[in-house]
């Protein structure tokens, strides 16, 4: 079953003649354990796709299903619960709350969802541990490096039993080696069964995905097919 499914999703802003078609009949299906990267130039609709998939915005037409549940017509309270329980978000600028420690930040979605504090904290610590930053649990965001902050942000996005991870330029301003680490961690989350959509303009980040979808003017113009395994790269002709 698809964790995320967009069927003919369109989104327009403004009125004619100045109407903008941010998304135009987009179909996209993401399975459990799959990472899909969305690439496209500025204004192609990448971020709109992510906010609609995350139920933060309504499409003008078309259907969005998360774990088989249609978002259209879903009462606001239920939608908010879905966002807290099923969907994790990773933002470019981490968006950690400065007054909370790493462990408190990671546990926050569960606490907001009414999970008892000790249980939520334990789950937050487990998520930090899986991302290799358990020893930073008691530190505040301004006491962490950029790479550590992003790990905490990913821990917060996957804490509990999240099924769908939505990431907008998740490596932020990190250098390429640290950006690699962030993508490796997101990929590992997918290997544990999470579905992920990563919006990026960076081909090196997109290359971590199982599938790369190209958007242009709000339409899907192409997508990669599953490439052969890396073994084929290791048997080139001998050099001169």
């Amino acid at each position, binding site marked *: 079953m698809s964790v995320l499914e967009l069927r003919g999703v369109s989104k327009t802003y403004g009125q004619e003649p100045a109407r903008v078609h941010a998304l135009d009949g987009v179909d996209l299906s993401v399975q459990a354990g799959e990472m899909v990267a969305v690439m496209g130039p500025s204004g192609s609709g990448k971020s709109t796709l992510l906010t609609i998939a995350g139920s933060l915005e309504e499409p003008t037409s078309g259907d969005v299903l998360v774990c088989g549940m249609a978002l259209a017509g879903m009462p606001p309270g239920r939608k908010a619960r879905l966002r807290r329980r099923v969907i994790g978000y990773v933002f470019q600028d981490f968006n950690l709350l400065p007054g909370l420690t790493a462990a408190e930040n990671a546990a926050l979605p569960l606490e907001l969802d009414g999970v008892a504090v000790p249980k939520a904290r334990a789950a937050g610590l487990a998520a930090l541990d899986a991302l290799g930053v358990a020893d930073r649990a008691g530190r505040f965001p301004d006491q962490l490096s950029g790479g550590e902050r992003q790990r905490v942000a990913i821990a917060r996005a996957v804490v509990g039993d999240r099924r769908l991870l939505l990431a907008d330029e998740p490596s932020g301003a990190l250098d390429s080696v640290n950006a690699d680490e962030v993508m490796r961690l997101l990929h590992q989350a997918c290997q544990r069964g999470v579905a992920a959509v990563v919006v990026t303009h960076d081909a090196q980040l997109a290359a971590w995905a199982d599938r790369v979808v*190209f958007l242009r003017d709000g339409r899907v113009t192409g997508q990669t097919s599953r490439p052969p395994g890396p073994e084929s790269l290791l048997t080139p002709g001998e050099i001169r």
Partner: protein
Amino acid sequence: MSVPHVLLALLAEGPKYGLQLREEFEAGTGEVWPLNVGQVYKTLGRLERDGLAESDGTGPDGREKTGQKRFRITAAGAEALAAWLRTPPDLTAPPRDELVMKVLVAARVPGTDAHEVILAHRLYLLELMQQWTRLKEGEARDDLGLALVVDAELFRLDAVTRWLDAADTRIRRAAAEPSRPAAVPAAVPQLRRLGARR
């Protein structure tokens, strides 16, 4: 890729036999660049001729052997290696890149959708980058040589995809503003001359 200088680098660590050099060369480059043994001995012969390496004709068991020489780097070889490491490769002339030619042609041929042409190449490059990234995820995690080679390939392919993105945007803008001049005339003859050197 300069095989002689990489062999000199391996000899700088201490005397070695030809087969050993081949194995270490392949391991050091993440086994991405295989090297045949004939090529190793041919290159060692040239290094010896040029006074950059010398051999003692002793086999692994310490006995005199004609086919299994042990090679060591000379002072001149160490100097040549140090100079090579610090000499930037010639990147001044733009290569005659087939992909660049295809996009230039696509932008001119009537009835051709340049965006579609660019997208086809971009998809191919991304699939190639996905393959290299899988290596980074697996074997390259604990193999520094392979990690460096994989990074180099990914940055090279990334540069091409970024150029394709820029080309796509430029061609689109040019189509939307047809009255603007398509090229800066002064730059063209100079590039042609540079390209002609290859």
